[in-house]
């Protein structure tokens, strides 16, 4: 047995060789006995991946076959969506300054928000101590657009051109009133970090459509201000690590630490990885830790990304008219517009989930100006993305989602003037929209009261939104589970209903 391993000794250094040979003799016996215990334990703990990993040394057709067979019995039903781009508007966009038109407010300028509307709701520490809660009507003008006659404010002139492709959800509700818990809730179904994000669940459940790129990719607009975003939002939680979102950045290195170091030509990288893989396999045989396999598949992915990422992040083959459509920012890597364009390329290449973040929607003060400048940065590219996907014929199996973590209050935080007001966080009602695969185009669902404060018809809770999203991918949200710490978890945990009215 020891001799079998001799040819694998690769180090020139005597000491290292000695170490490597020790791996055979002493550790082999010791660790295999330990390892069997660990394997047994592993299977007791229900780590399904333990025996299901793909042996990288197997014939290519075996690999293909292994990718093709879904071990989890997914999808549960025929999917509508093949891929998704989630345009996360971080900070909480003001629904009544963008989509939720409230004409009656104009007569109520400066009046106190009625207690009956607030119905004793606890406010944040930022506006909860205000002696007055004056109603701040939107300074934006609203018009109806398209055949669907959807209301959009003049903050978003480009988006108003594509409203007939959008499905507005005006009665969104969340449980959280502050940024970090609310974003975490929106992205993982729980307010505390540590659960898998939506993209990780889909990657775990449905697998990859392109082995050369990650299934789940995150893009964050550069120079973002406001509440920080963190990797747990696109984290894999307790799912195997290869399902975490891979962040692409602007600039020379879209994915950090991917390029070869200086003075290394990378020619023997494949050889190095194979050898490392052998060592890791030994380690895996000894300990049965599924994270070792996750690490190995991530090395392989990084290796493939060394060629696939420069290719996909190169926007030079896009036509001028495309750049024009996305706006002049789209030529500046890392902006929201450039990320939208990059997202389209990634989706075309078979990436299943592109999660885009744009910060700065937290208009506690200077709300009209803030909404306007945020819209200027995002409106054109958002609309262009919808148009572009449609033109290319991939909107009908691509889901586009636009939305933040909560809405904003109808009353002014801070001083209210005719031209200026601030708005505080508001979890009880906000607007999101979806477009594309399987959702009704030119449709508006749900209604809020005259203050855009409470949902009066067809509320959609974050859990319901998650359930619907998974449904579009052919996944029954109650059946995609993962056992962790003694119980089975779902994206929607014990909540959520598919909102069938949104579906075509």
């Amino acid at each position, binding site marked *: 047995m020891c001799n079998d391993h001799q040819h694998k000794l690769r180090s020139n250094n005597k000491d290292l060789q000695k170490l490597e040979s020790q791996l055979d003799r002493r550790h082999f016996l010791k660790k295999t006995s330990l390892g069997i215990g660990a394997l047994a334990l592993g299977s007791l703990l229900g780590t399904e991946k333990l025996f299901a990993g793909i042996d990288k040394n197997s014939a290519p*057709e075996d690999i293909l076959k292994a990718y093709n067979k879904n071990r989890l019995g997914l999808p*549960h*039903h*025929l999917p509508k969506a093949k891929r998704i781009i989630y345009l996360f508007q971080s900070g909480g966009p003001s629904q009544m300054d963008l989509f939720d038109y409230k004409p009656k407010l104009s007569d109520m300028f400066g009046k106190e928000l009625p207690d009956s509307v607030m119905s004793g709701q606890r406010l944040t520490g930022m506006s909860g101590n205000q002696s007055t809660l004056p109603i701040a009507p939107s300074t934006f003008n609203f018009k109806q657009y398209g055949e669907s006659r959807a209301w959009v404010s003049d903050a978003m002139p480009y988006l108003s051109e594509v409203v007939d492709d959008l499905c507005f959800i005006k009665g969104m509700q969340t449980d959280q009133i502050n940024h970090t818990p609310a974003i975490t809730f929106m992205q993982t179904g729980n307010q505390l970090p540590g659960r898998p994000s939506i993209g990780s669940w889909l990657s775990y459940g449905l697998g990859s459509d392109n082995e050369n790129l990650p299934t789940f990719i995150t893009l964050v607009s550069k120079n973002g201000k406001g509440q920080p975003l963190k990797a747990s939002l696109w984290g894999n939680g307790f799912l195997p690590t290869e399902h975490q979102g891979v962040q692409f950045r602007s600039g020379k290195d879209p994915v950090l630490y991917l390029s070869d170091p200086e003075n290394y030509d990378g020619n023997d990288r494949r050889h190095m990885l194979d050898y490392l893989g052998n060592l890791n396999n030994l380690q895996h045989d000894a300990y049965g830790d599924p994270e070792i396999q996750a690490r190995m598949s991530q090395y392989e992915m990084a290796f493939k990304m060394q060629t696939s990422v420069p290719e996909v992040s190169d926007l030079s083959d896009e036509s001028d008219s495309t750049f024009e459509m996305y706006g002049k920012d789209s030529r500046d890597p890392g902006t929201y517009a450039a990320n939208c364009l990059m997202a389209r390329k990634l989706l075309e290449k078979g990436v299943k989930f592109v999660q885009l973040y744009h910060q700065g929607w937290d208009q506690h003060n200077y709300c009209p100006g803030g909404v306007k400048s945020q819209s200027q940065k995002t409106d054109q590219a958002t609309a262009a993305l919808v148009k572009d996907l449609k033109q290319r*014929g991939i909107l*009908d199996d691509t889901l586009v989602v636009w939305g933040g973590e909560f809405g904003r209050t109808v009353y002014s935080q801070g001083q209210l003037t005719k031209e200026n007001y601030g708005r505080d966080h508001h979890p009880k009602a906000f607007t999101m929209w979806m477009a594309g695969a399987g959702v009704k185009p030119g449709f508006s669902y749900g209604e809020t009261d005259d203050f855009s404060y409470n949902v009066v018809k067809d509320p959609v809770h974050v859990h319901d939104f998650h359930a619907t999203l998974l449904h579009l991918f052919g996944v029954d949200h109650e059946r995609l589970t993962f056992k962790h710490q003694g119980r089975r978890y779902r994206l929607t945990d014990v909540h959520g209903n598919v909102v069938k009215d949104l579906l075509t």
Partner: protein
Amino acid sequence: MENSVPDFVLFLGRFHPLVVHLPIGFLFFAFVLEVFSRWKKNPVLTSGIPLALFLGGLSGAVACILGYMLSLSGDYEEAALDTHFWFGIATTAIAFIAWGIRIEKIKVSSLKKLQPNIAFLTLLVILLSVTGHYGGNLTHGSDYLVKYMPFGGAEKQELVAVTKVEDAEVFGHLVNPILQNKCASCHNSSKKKGGLSIADSLAILNGGKNGDILIPGDASNSEMLKRVLLDPHHDDFMPPEGKTPLTEEEIAILTYWIDNAQANFKTKVASVETDENITGIASTMLGLSAGSSSGSEIPIPSVSLVADDKITELQVEGFRLRELAFESGLYEAVLAPNSNENGTTDDMSKKLEKLLSIKENILWLSLENNEIKDDHIKLIAQFINVQKLKLNDNPLSDAAVAQLTQLENLTSVNLLGTNITAKSIPSFSEMKQLKYAYVWKTKIKKEDLEKKGINDYPKIIID
């Protein structure tokens, strides 16, 4: 009836299932010792046998008494109970006799040749097995043991498999499986807890000792539903603590059966007022969940599964196959762009012909940017179930589109960047199911659409 028996007696009676295992152990062990000592020719081992037999008989007697107490509850079917009762007593009696023979208090010299010790012990084991079996039948129902037997098995009521929710029998397909799954372990023909059995429709209509369990058309007042909807900690809540409670969906189905279907045992879903929620639950129960959300769409074809080898073979050809719903046999096939870079037109034809071997299984087909020519279309037009077809960035002309009209299920076709012209527009109109035709970067212009007067369906998307 139950009221006439003191609670204390019933309390003790419930220890019967516990105590009953003692004689089984003791007596069986006596048998093992006997056989083992003969085999090993080791007489020392036999010294334990009298004790085991005595304890077996003693605990058997206790079990008999406790069993009688339990039987007073009246929850069990008389005939099955009697058999178990007499076999139990017989086992106990034989145990004492065997003990007597062993310690030579009972002398059966005339039977010496028959080797009474081993004979009685064998008899005991047989009796134990029979008694135990009848006891098990009482507790778990007579089909418990053989339910999952791999061959033969108890005859099952075969229901006709349905393909549409409307064809399903409300009771047979939806309600009965729930009852059998969640209630039958205590309410069957041999173990009638509370006097209720749900073995068949007659038994259900007979109700339990508290009367009828169903009021047709009034689920909220029907005992069956009332018990299920109680607070889970309530004493009368069903199923009792420790058993799996009914899910919301199951409760919805029961309510639907009693309210909408008047608790009828024969009606089908089609003849009952059925809302979407019930249809959804029912189709999930029947395993018809695929595409349940869409009413107006093309029915999903039912096809046979594709063998793994076949998939592998096609994947090697460059097709990427993804099953659209698990074990539906329906696939998305994608040929990666430029898969035939060095091949000829014929090579592409060969690839397509190979894929045609599973033509019915392909629901989505993508052949973008692969030098697909008009000649190939006659092959592509044979994928009769294709709903989404991507042919963009291929040198195709109007002749190709004319042939695609054979694909009756096509809902979306992508012809971006092909050479088609306005002449193809009538072909699009011919495709009955077509919703979207993507023709950006072709010779079709916006003006062409206006000229032809095509507005709504199919939606021809230019830019």
